[in-house]
Structure formats: C-alpha cells, structure tokens
C-alpha cells in the first residue's frame, strides 16, 4: 500500500517528527511504499542541517537523511512555510538574496501542490503534528 506522511511540527519541541519517523520505518519494514513525507508548518525545521543536538540525544535530521538515502524517500519541505521560518536551499537563497542555505541532504524544497498531489496519489495520508 502507498502511504503519504505529513509532519507538521518541528523537531525536539514536539514528538511529531519522532512518531512520523518510527511510523515510516515500520511501514517500510512491512513492505509498504512511502511515496512522500511532506514537512509543513514548523515541520520544515526538521530539514535544517545546522542543528547540533547534544550527543546523547537522537539526531533527528540525520535520522531522516539516512532513512531517505537507504529507501530513496522523497522528503519535501513546503516552500511557503520554509520561507517564513528561514529554511533555504541554494536556489532559494540566491533568489531571495540571502547569504546562506541550510537545507540538509536528502530534503528538497517544493510547493504545497506536492501535498495535494500526495493525497491524490497515496492510498492513505497520515499527519503527525500537534
């Protein structure tokens, strides 16, 4: 079965991104397809590569990046939500005249249409948020 996942809260403050990560791993282990993970609201903050959590805590962004690499996951960060919160790839940084980008490997920035498309194409859509 084809799953689409929405993550709508940022890392560490809320458990949402942890729950989503565990769910995606379990779904993949059962042979399901995870067509896309869409990060919205503060969820876009999961995709910054500049976070430096304490070593004895889980590394949320690195976990997602590794999982995406292993399973060729499509991790999409909403552009509108990302612009508000200062999450940029190089293309967006150039376009907006900003001096840096901070997107982590394995994530890409795209539009809200990707969320709707995910809902249309997936058998199930599940949201993890607050």
């Amino acid at each position, binding site marked *: 079965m084809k799953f689409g996942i929405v993550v709508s809260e940022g890392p560490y403050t809320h458990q949402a991104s942890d729950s989503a990560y565990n769910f995606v791993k379990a779904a993949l282990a059962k042979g399901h397809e995870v067509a896309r993970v869409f990060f*919205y*609201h503060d969820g876009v903050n999961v995709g910054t590569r500049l976070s430096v959590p304490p070593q004895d805590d889980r590394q949320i962004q690195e976990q997602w990046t590794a999982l995406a690499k292993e399973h060729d996951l499509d991790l999409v960060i909403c552009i509108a*939500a990302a612009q508000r919160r200062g999450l940029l790839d190089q293309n967006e940084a150039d376009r907006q005249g900003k001096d840096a980008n901070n997107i982590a490997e394995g994530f890409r920035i795209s539009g*809200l*249409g990707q969320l709707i498309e995910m*809902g*249309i194409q997936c058998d199930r859509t599940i949201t993890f*948020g607050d």
Partner: protein
Amino acid sequence: MSEVKKFLYVNRKAPYGTIYAQESLEVVLIGAAFDQDVSMAFLDDGVFQLTKGQDTKEAGLKNFSPTFRALGDYEVTKLYVEQESLDERGLTLDDLQDIQYEDEDDDYAEKPSIIVVSRAGMADVMADQDVVLSF
C-alpha cells in the same frame, strides 16, 4: 482509485494564537487548482476562524479572515460548521461572516457556502472522505 478524491480540511483551532488556521487556508487555495471534491470542516475552536469583525491592526497580525469570502472564487463552496461548537461558544450563525459563492449551474445565483450541521452530521461528513487533512 476514482479520478476525483474527496478532500476534507479539518479546522479545530482558533485563528491568530497559532498559525495553523492561516496555513490551512494556504493549502486550501493551492489545493483548489487540483480539481478535487473539496470540503472544509469547522468545529471546536475552529469556528472562531469564521467570526466577523476581526481587526488585527493593533495586535500587529495579518488579518486573513477576508480570504474566507474569496473561497467561492476558488470553487471551495462547502464550509461545514458544527452547531454544537457554535452553541458551546455562545455563537450563532449571525456572528459569522456571510460567505457566499456564485452557483454557475444556477445562473450564477449567490448562495451561502456555510452549511451548519449537527455533531452527528459532522461525523457523517468526516466519514464520507478519501483524504482528511487536519490543522
């Protein structure tokens, strides 16, 4: 899979205190381009999103409440509002914005977009969807 899916956007949070209501509307507006069967649900504190007279000037916030009146132009014409949620909060339909759409199948007659339903009716609406997105 049928060609057109039924999408329900569930709004249970008040506006302004958090961004969910505003970013929910942004999804609805973008989603309108996909020609799906779209409904919105307003229950619990979500009914506060639709009240008239919102004035955010002094609070220094963006007033997005006029956007609800533009939804008809995007062919988003089914705004289900729960009666019990209104009652619990001391609200009536008169406290909500007058949101209308032009019915192109009826000589562009102006019709109300807000559909007041009971709690049981809202449960029926929710159970009749393909995709439920909550904000």
